[in-house]
């Protein structure tokens, strides 16, 4: 095969057996790779009703056919599993250097089944797979683990691992690769910890085979030249200020989630936005393999209270730990971000859970005795201390480790948790960005913007701006973006480049550029219709898993604070999110029943019956 390596590694953690399975060409074409391949494998083998932290669950790491090929931002891999946070599937994406190195070992994906009796790590040296003991690594943070593993394997290898949070089954534990990159969401690290799998170390060699290298090279040059021409006059904001530059946008549109999602504007926003990060803490940019953007931030904080060095924070971290907690201390936010990276946790759920706790304390539903310290809005030191306690499940951190829904439910007020399917939202307030509410509610992984991001058309104006306050007509375009995201996630690309540069403006974000790359890389001769159908197939395959797990319209929900309480401040003042109306429209566009179940007609058309 070309583009694809043609092999899937299966690791039985109970017996220690490692075996190579062929990648079926028809499966590869129909599901593309990455996220698509992951849901195909999950649907083959995992009971959707199983306990996510039991040995019945699979943990899948999958690259896409464009990962490591040199296609711009072709650096991604996807972690797929059933989530312990949501009970739904999850697909958690990361970049850096690990995914490309993984693919160079000769495999498209690795499937971990069962559970090891003792801590182990997988060492994949080219095609040779070996499980090794990891007792000496257990308890170590992600940076220590990475350094120890590089010392005992190969200094040029790449490492993905969990920290204490994954070992302790924090329900939003991440899998960190290259120290600072996170497959962050939905507790993929907890699943890895439940399997007693501490790390995956990869050392590959050779190049990814391409079906038509000349065609690939010519198209690649065209795309990169066009991209460079576009940024000649004005550098890309992602390069200059990273994703943190988005604070300026969301604040001015009135959709910067603030005070546990009670409002969409934050008075202290100028102290936490991208320009401030660049001026105060940025040391240099960092880029994933083959990325011309370089949105990563290598930063250092010298402030003695919060001193540290690492990468980040991203916009989502800044919203969750900043405005959402009424914290305007960027040093504290950055420090809490470093701690999350080192202990291996999702910064969004961490920050959102602390914000939820702050509101529970303010309303008298949670006491200082339970928290173990005062916890008022804006308390930067509490943010850092509670983040540290959560990763090791000490004191109140043990309850925070369950996420905001379970915390608020324990206090008798689950309505105060800003979640969909029990997963916390990223930083765009749906009362002022209506389609974002629909995307959160219908995302297969719960509150997420990366499974179809309406911020592109509602806020950033790509390909054309749409009124963020209007809900009518948003279902169709949200579906188009969700299908496009499934293709991007499965191909191994990054949404930051692909949406702007590889989708057609005039065809409803049709993936024309991605198709050209895929065909040159794989020789699979995708037509545009076939590729778009593959995106739709992946979304429906995920929905099938959810349906079998018991999810339906009742779970495609938002908290009443967003659908019943009008926004109190900013440009969206007086608005609520019209989720129910959009859901009716959305299910029709998808061809699902009024209860959100895919119909036989749709499943037959997509060959999912």
């Amino acid at each position, binding site marked *: 095969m070309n583009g694809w390596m043609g092999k899937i590694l299966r690791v039985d953690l109970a017996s220690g057996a490692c075996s190579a399975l062929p990648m079926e060409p028809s499966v590869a074409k129909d599901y593309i790779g990455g996220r698509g391949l992951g849901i195909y494998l999950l649907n083959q083998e995992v009971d959707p009703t199983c306990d996510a932290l039991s040995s019945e669950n699979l943990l899948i790491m999958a690259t896409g056919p464009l990962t490591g090929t040199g296609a711009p931002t072709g650096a991604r891999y996807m972690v797929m599993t059933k989530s312990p946070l949501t009970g739904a599937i999850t697909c958690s994406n990361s970049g850096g250097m690990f995914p490309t190195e993984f693919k160079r070992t000769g495999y498209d994906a690795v499937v971990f089944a069962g559970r090891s009796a003792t801590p182990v790590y997988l060492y994949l040296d080219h095609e040779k797979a070996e499980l090794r003991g990891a007792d000496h690594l257990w308890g170590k943070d992600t940076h220590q683990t990475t350094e120890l593993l590089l010392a005992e394997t190969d200094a040029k290898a790449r490492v993905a691992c969990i920290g204490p949070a994954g070992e302790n089954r924090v329900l939003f534990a991440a899998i960190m690769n290259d120290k600072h990159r996170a497959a962050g969401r939905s507790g993929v690290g907890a699943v890895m910890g439940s399997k007693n799998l501490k790390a995956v170390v990869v050392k590959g060699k050779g190049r990814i085979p391409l079906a038509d290298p000349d065609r690939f090279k010519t198209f690649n040059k065209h795309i990169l030249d066009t991209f460079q021409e576009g940024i000649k006059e004005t550098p890309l904001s992602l390069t200059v200020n990273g994703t943190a530059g988005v604070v300026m946008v969301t604040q*001015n*549109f009135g959709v910067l989630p603030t005070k546990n999602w009670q409002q969409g504007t934050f008075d202290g926003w100028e102290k936490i936005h991208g320009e401030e990060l660049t001026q105060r803490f940025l040391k240099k940019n960092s880029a994933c393999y083959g990325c011309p953007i370089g949105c990563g931030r290598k930063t250092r904080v010298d402030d003695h209270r919060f001193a540290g060095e690492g990468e980040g924070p991203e916009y989502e971290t800044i919203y969750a730990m900043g405005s959402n907690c009424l914290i305007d201390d960027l040093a504290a936010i950055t420090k809490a971000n470093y701690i999350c990276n080192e202990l291996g946790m999702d910064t969004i759920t961490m920050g959102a859970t602390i914000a939820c706790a702050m509101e529970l304390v303010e309303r008298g539903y949670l006491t200082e005795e339970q928290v173990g310290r005062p916890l008022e809005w804006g308390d930067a030191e509490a943010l850092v201390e509670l983040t540290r306690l959560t990763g090791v499940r000490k004191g109140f951190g043990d309850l925070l480790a369950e996420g905001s829904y379970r915390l608020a439910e324990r206090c008798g007020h689950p309505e105060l948790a800003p979640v969909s399917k029990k997963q916390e939202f990223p930083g765009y307030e749906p009362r002022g960005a209506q389609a974002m509410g629909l995307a959160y509610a219908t995302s297969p992984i719960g509150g997420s913007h990366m499974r179809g991001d309406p911020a592109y058309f509602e806020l*950033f*104006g790509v390909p054309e701006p749409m009124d963020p306050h209007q809900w009518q007509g948003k279902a169709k375009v949200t579906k188009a973006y969700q299908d496009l995201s499934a293709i991007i996630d499965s191909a191994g690309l990054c949404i930051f480049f692909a949406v702007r540069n590889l989708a057609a403006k005039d065809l409803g974000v049709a993936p024309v550029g991605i198709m050209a790359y895929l065909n040159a890389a794989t020789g699979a001769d995708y037509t545009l219709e076939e590729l778009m159908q593959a995106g739709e197939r992946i979304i429906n395959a995920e929905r099938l898993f959810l349906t079998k797990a018991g999810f339906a319209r009742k779970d495609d929900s938002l908290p009443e604070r967003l659908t019943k309480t009008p926004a109190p401040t900013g*440009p969206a003042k007086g608005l609520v999110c019209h989720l129910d109306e959009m859901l009716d429209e959305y299910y029709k566009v998808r061809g699902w029943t009024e209860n959100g179940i895919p119909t036989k007609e749709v499943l037959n058309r997509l060959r999912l019956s």
Partner: protein
Amino acid sequence: MQIFVTLYGDLKRYAPGDQPHFTLNLDSGAALKDIHKMLAIPEGQHVSLINGRRSSPDAPVADGDTLVLLPPISGG
């Protein structure tokens, strides 16, 4: 009429004085494009929000409006 203007990012260089926040006095009936012209900001390279709503160059402005000009930004 008075319009309250804020420029962000690279657009700050188009401010008439030292500060990116300033007030403009305009004749009634002015449109957004008149302000762009007054400040010598080229069309198409930014996002204009009148009272927090994205607005096209032909959009009218009214006394007391706030106008925010943002550079193109994406990501998150």
